[in-house]
């Protein structure tokens, strides 16, 4: 699923006409609607709301539809009345990176054990791709824990995070990313990213997005190892491995509450 800017107010739909310099009318109106709904302590119908904010019912309805899309209000299917949405609550809830590690731990361990490759979970911190969790390649060779390290945006993890980063998510995209917009669009569409020597010759990576409760991508989970053990001669990910990575990313997303509500 895609969460892009069309959910937010968009100048092309006619709602964002500027009333006074520095003030966007549709945002003022949406804020007024939220205040009315919040003030009711329960739920209100569209007529009550339009009267309370002094707008035409059709205008109020359009604004409510957008607020519904972004999860700031919810509509009761039976009565058609509106109440505050859970999306508002999540605005203040920042996902702690240590919490992210703790909650992904079982799934990332299992991914390493099954795939035989090193596993990393990364997230964007101030526009940088930062390793949140690292499980060693299970061969007992000497390896160093990379938690806290910054990875280049050309890694599979970096590509997943960049493909899903957007100003309205609060995440800045990784700086200096030499990844084509076409590739990022493909990563978004198919739900996984590859790395075949872009970062380090001979090194391969495969990563998938981890989504939080609200559906936004909060992290990327992936494996890395010799390019030849991750990809076939045509450069396609070896199929059991790809399923392991996307399944593990889905499992962590479920753990974080995605798709449960």
């Amino acid at each position, binding site marked *: 699923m895609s969460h892009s800017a069309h959910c937010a107010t968009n100048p092309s739909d006619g709602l964002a006409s500027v009333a006074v310099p520095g003030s966007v009318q549709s945002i003022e109106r949406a804020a007024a609607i939220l205040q009315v709904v919040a003030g009711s302590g329960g739920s209100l119908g569209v007529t009550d709301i339009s009267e309370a904010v002094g707008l035409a019912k059709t205008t109020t309805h359009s604004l409510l539809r957008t607020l519904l899309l972004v999860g700031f209000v919810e509509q009761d299917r039976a009565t058609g009345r509106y109440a505050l949405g859970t999306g508002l609550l999540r605005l203040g809830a920042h996902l*702690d990176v*240590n*919490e992210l590690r703790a*909650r992904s*731990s079982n799934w990332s361990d299992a991914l390493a*054990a099954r795939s035989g490759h090193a596993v990393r979970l990364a997230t964007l911190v101030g526009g940088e791709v930062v390793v949140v969790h690292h499980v*060693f390649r*299970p061969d*007992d060779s000497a390896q160093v*824990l990379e938690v806290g390290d910054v990875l280049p945006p050309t890694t599979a993890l970096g590509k997943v995070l960049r493909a899903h980063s957007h100003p309205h998510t609060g995440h800045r995209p990784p700086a200096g990313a030499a990844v084509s917009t076409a590739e990022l669009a493909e990563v978004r569409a198919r739900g996984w990213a590859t790395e075949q020597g872009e970062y380090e010759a001979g090194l391969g990576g495969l990563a998938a997005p981890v989504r939080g409760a609200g559906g936004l991508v909060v992290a990327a989970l992936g494996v890395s190892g010799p390019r030849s053990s991750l990809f076939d001669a045509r450069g396609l990910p070896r199929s059991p491995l790809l399923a392991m990575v996307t399944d593990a990313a889905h499992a962590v997303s479920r753990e974080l509450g995605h798709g449960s509500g």
Partner: protein
Amino acid sequence: MADRYVLAVDQGTTSTRSLVFDRGGRMVAVRQREHRQHFPRPGWVEHDPMEIWANTQRTCAQVLADVSGRGDVVALGIANQRETTVVWERDTGRPITRALVWQDTRTDELVSELAARPDAGLVAERSGMAIAGYFAGPRLRWILDRVPRARERAERGELLFGTMETWLIWNLTGGPDGGVHVTDVTNASRTLLMDVRTCRWDAGLLAFFGIPAAMLPEIRPSVGVLGVATALSPALPIAGALGDQQAALFGQACFAPGEAKCTYGTGSFLLQNTGTELVRTRSGSISTVAYQLAGEPVHYALEGSVAVAGALVQWLRDGLGLIGSAPEVETLARTVSDNGGCYVVPAFSGLLAPHWRGEARGLVAGLTSYVTKGHLARAVLEATGWQTRDVVQAMAADSGLSLPALRVDGGMTTNNLLMQFVADALDTPVVRPMVGETVSLGAAYAAGLAVGVWSDVEALRRNWHRAAQWTPSPDRAQALTAEYPTWERAVQLSIAWGAP
């Protein structure tokens, strides 16, 4: 050929879990069910054995259904909460009272009376452990004293005693209809009734505690077929049983003298394999049975139990409201670079190993206006690291064994700041295995070893893989050694504070 799987039951304090493992030691399926905690009076903690038996049947059936068609489950191993005591009727299978849980303190007075007897030295000499309410024997004595007609019925052979693995094995193998009444040597060693050298019930200890021999289970090796679980479908050989901390030692593949594991949960439990020779302790660790393979000598371990580890982080969350979830303690602790001179001694209900001072009470030392909640969070994590050092030092003094590395498991091992602190405080590498479910894995290993899923302990050792390692920094290790006496002073203050 289909994969061969092993079923493990982890009968724990709060829940019963059934898990299936493959030959690589990887978890294939898991089911879990919590049971009720009964607190009839202050200090009393009870479980309903029938509820636990029902949960065991249910989770086993579920997990066996989960893997049906994927592989052949060939054996069952059991790990259990230790020292929890059950007494039931041989003819009906009905418990005569709820199980007295290891956290239950109702025997404190009884234990003081017993400890004051002139012949009390016998207990430590024969069982290897000082007399304490922590162990099962005094609980059994309490039941015999307090439940009407219990003693006379036990003497007539109408009642059976067991710790949780004994209760489950008896039920799994038929209950009143031919159930096998056995215990494993690690669980038996936690009763104070067993001679720790011969691994048999000791007549002198039975006389001291007033326990009729007729109600006791047969003591068996931890690894070896104990009976057939006809209550399951398909029926499986029960081929391994261990107390939960010993199971974690086994699951962590600590088979050589010196190898040690620490489980960081609510409390922390450190066990170090000491080989086939019993170590006499003087420094505050206890000697316990680690495991026994059928036909082989018993392996022993030193054990250091710390009551409060993760529980201190929970207190920061629930008691003080400084964090929203346990993992956030690391985020808060990382807002500062050191403890700001602040130390927390979490002696909430006394101190266990290596101090054994029940009267100690918790304290926060070194408060100045400079100290923030970040320093407090750091001091909370450091307390767990310092307590690990206390225990490791005591063990080193008792065993003379060096600690090549500390294998860790449990929820707190996702806390990188804590794990690095432990490595620095011990000046020893800290390693985390790929499979965090070490208790149930240990039970599966014991059972699988007995029926030939794995050829020997070396095969199990090859299954152990490192998922992470924290390496000590020489500078930090030196600095923490210099700081350690300050922590020790805080501990002494907490003991002095609680002294009458």
